[in-house]
């Protein structure tokens, strides 16, 4: 477990609680309730992060929320967040316009085990907005494709209208060295792709369990079903990684808001080895 002082590139090294102002370059709608913010540092200071890490993003006088970094880790001049508007703060963020400034603190937390996955097959399973924290990992994986064995990504979402990053999918689909499968809960009209829950796709994979690392992200209830399906494919719980969400305030292990029994999600997570937290997931109200 790394101490906060060891975490890379917290934007304001002197005090991780003091946000930087970042200029909104673009605010693009992805679906009816989800949008992508592209931000830049007005002083052109590069933003380095590891896939799976998050920022505290906010608006003065409204508040701040944890949001995963969703851009390309190799394009450090832009900070990208894809956000679903669910409440007061995310809704206020949805309304920001280019030129406006938002507050950003981060990056925080531990990301996906891309180093540990080198030399292994990789299965990525995500659903809904869970694709956002996963996208930087996919960029990294594809960029250093020869370091990994077989790579597959399974993505599930409710309807065709809820699909995120459609253009990117087209590109991923054409790659021969990356299996990408998308499934919808319900298919209407001309939809010719998979329909069914994302767990169905897992059982269709030919998984070499002892040689595979799985990374899972999405709504917590969904992750429980995904993990069971992966374990049914004989994956060891220590080879499955999941990204956890809890309410956060400080983001740096000071306030205890994100406590999950003996661990603080902001500091030890959000990405955990499943075997380390398996016993906590079924506990209600934790």
């Amino acid at each position, binding site marked *: 477990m790394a101490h906060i002082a060891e975490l890379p590139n917290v934007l304001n090294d002197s005090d991780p609680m003091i946000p930087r102002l970042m200029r909104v370059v673009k605010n693009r709608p992805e679906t009816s309730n989800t949008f992508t913010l592209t931000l830049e540092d007005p002083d052109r200071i590069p933003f380095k992060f590891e896939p799976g890490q998050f920022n505290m993003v906010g608006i003065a006088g409204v508040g701040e929320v944890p949001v995963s970094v969703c851009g390309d880790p190799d394009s450090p001049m832009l900070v990208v967040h894809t956000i679903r508007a669910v409440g007061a703060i995310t809704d206020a963020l949805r309304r920001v316009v280019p030129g406006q400034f938002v507050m950003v603190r981060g990056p925080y937390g531990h990301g996906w085990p891309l180093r540990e996955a080198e030399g292994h097959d990789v299965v990525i399973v995500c659903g*809904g907005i869970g694709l956002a924290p996963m996208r930087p990992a996919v960029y990294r994986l594809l960029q250093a494709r020869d370091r990994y064995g077989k790579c597959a990504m399974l993505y599930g979402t409710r309807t065709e209208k809820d699909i995120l990053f459609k253009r990117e999918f087209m590109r991923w689909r054409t790659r021969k060295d990356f299996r990408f499968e998308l499934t919808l809960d319900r298919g209407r009209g001309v939809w010719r792709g998979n329909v069914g829950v994302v767990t169905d796709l897992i059982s269709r994979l030919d998984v070499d369990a002892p040689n595979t690392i799985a990374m899972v992200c*999405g*709504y917590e209830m969904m992750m429980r079903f995904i993990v069971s399906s992966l374990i049914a494919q004989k994956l060891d719980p220590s080879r499955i990684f999941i990204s956890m969400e809890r309410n956060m305030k400080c983001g740096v292990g000071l306030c205890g808001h994100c406590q999950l029994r003996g661990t603080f999600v902001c500091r030890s997570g959000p990405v955990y080895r499943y075997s380390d937290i398996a016993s906590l997931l079924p506990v209600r109200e934790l």
Partner: protein
Amino acid sequence: MKHDLSAKLAGHPFVQGLSEDHIKFLTGCIANVKFMPGEYVFREGEPADLLFLLRSGQVAVQVYGPGRGVTTLSTMGAGEIVGWSWAVPPYISHFDVVAQQMTLALSVDAKCLRAKCETDPEFGYQMLARMVKVIERRLTATRIQLLDMYGSHR
């Protein structure tokens, strides 16, 4: 020809763990079939006289409602099976199933299969145990679908 069918059948996950004798026994009920994209495998309301073991391609289970058009409820591909109504009276299909891609399958004659299940209870148990597994998986998937597990509308 039968030998060829038997080999294809033996490679399908549905019969994994079935004895050689039972595979041979089942081979007596099967045929090789192919569906082109858009072709119906079966339609709602038709007698459920065939069960399909999919070998490649993809089919969609659909329902049509006036004013709503066609809704696809699930899709299935290689290694999966389509059609359970053969096992439950009155043996009538509840949904439309249409090929989305060129699909290869083994069709199992339901009357022949039911007769074999009656005459050899051990074989019948093996068939039903496999069907229960498929039904359990589909039921779980359906329950998960009901949960809005992607949290899209929370």
